[in-house]
């Protein structure tokens, strides 16, 4: 291991430990956990990928949905310009599997929350409010900005937490293992100062 890697490793492991020692820090575990065991849910998603591969010839993925929506909106404003962009030449917006999949994901989330008595109907969540207060505008700006970064990153990396993080890694895809490690490094590096500085 090179010196740079050792230092990076030490910082990444020690930083949270020193931070967690501080009194009164926000702890995500003070808020309600999942309804079902993560192992049951994980196994369910694993089996679901067998089914999507077998019946739809598709890996589970979510991020391309947003690119498709962007393409449709772009075509409303300027069809010619949208169709001239290299990304949309290769991935023309269409009513396809990826599009209906994510729309159905919203509905699936609703069914699960409704039947489980977990339907929230809130603009802000308690952990955010505990740290940043009750401004919806602030949350809107940060969430939208995060969304921009995330979608740009997903397109560049070639997938998101589903496409790379689950579907790609399970196929032992090198790109996906690299991407998912970087997702977490980038996420931890921003989340820790966001909540503890």
């Amino acid at each position, binding site marked *: 291991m090179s010196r740079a890697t050792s230092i990076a490793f030490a910082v990444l492991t020690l930083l949270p430990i020193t931070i967690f020692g501080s009194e009164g820090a926000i702890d995500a575990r003070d808020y309600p956990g999942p309804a079902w065991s993560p192992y049951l849910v994980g196994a369910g998603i694993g089996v679901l990928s067998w089914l999507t591969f077998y019946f739809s010839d598709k890996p589970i993925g979510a991020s391309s*949905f947003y690119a498709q929506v962007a393409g449709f909106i772009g075509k409303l404003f300027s069809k010619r310009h949208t169709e001239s962009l290299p990304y949309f030449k290769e991935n023309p917006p269409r009513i396809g599997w990826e599009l209906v999949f994510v729309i159905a994901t919203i509905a699936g989330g609703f069914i699960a929350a409704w039947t489980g008595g977990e339907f929230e109907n809130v603009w802000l969540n308690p952990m955010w409010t505990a740290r940043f207060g009750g401004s919806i505008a602030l949350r809107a700006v940060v*969430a939208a900005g995060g969304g921009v970064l*995330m979608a740009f990153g997903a397109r560049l990396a070639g997938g998101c937490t589903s496409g790379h993080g689950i579907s790609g890694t399970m196929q032992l895809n090198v790109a996906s293992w690299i991407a998912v490690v970087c997702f977490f*490094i980038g996420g931890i590096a921003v989340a820790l100062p966001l909540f503890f500085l």
Partner: protein
Amino acid sequence: MIDPGKAVKMSSAEQPSPVASPGKLIGGVIFGLAFGFLLQKGGVGKYHVLLGQLLLQDWTVVKIMMTAVVVGMVGIFVLHHFAKVNLHIKPTKLGPNIIGGLLFGAGFALMGYCPGTGAAALGQGSWDALFGMVGLVAGSWLYAELSGPLKKTVEKWGDLGKLTLAEVLHVPRGVLVAIMAVLLTAVLVALERFFPR
């Protein structure tokens, strides 16, 4: 033995018609419903569960992902071995995988949901996911707008083509699947011991 590469009728090279076939769309709806349902039940539609993972407090996300990978990996390997499914390997490009991955992670920490879990969060009535989804569409557009120059620069950095861990490590795919399944399960057992949530 059947050649897994050729035996599946449903080729992934489908015609890019503006609307996919009804069968494909129905599959997308059913699997999307199941995906959203599982994500919400797994608690990963909740901001504090996702941020809790990035703050290294709540390990639900990693538990779900790793379990899905173990179950999915074994099943997909077997199905592919008997030529029932196609693999969907994305090309490894070190530059964009790493840079895109880090940007994605940073955006993930800010938005608090990823592209798939954001959809489940919206269904759950966590309306702040909407702001993030607007950002995701905008970010996808930004990428498409820059896709020309990006393809000529960043996306050429470290292009290794389609690559799996089995090829990198020179281990037969089946052996590696078995090793990874044992390894990831061991990590899960250790995780559960030190981080019950």
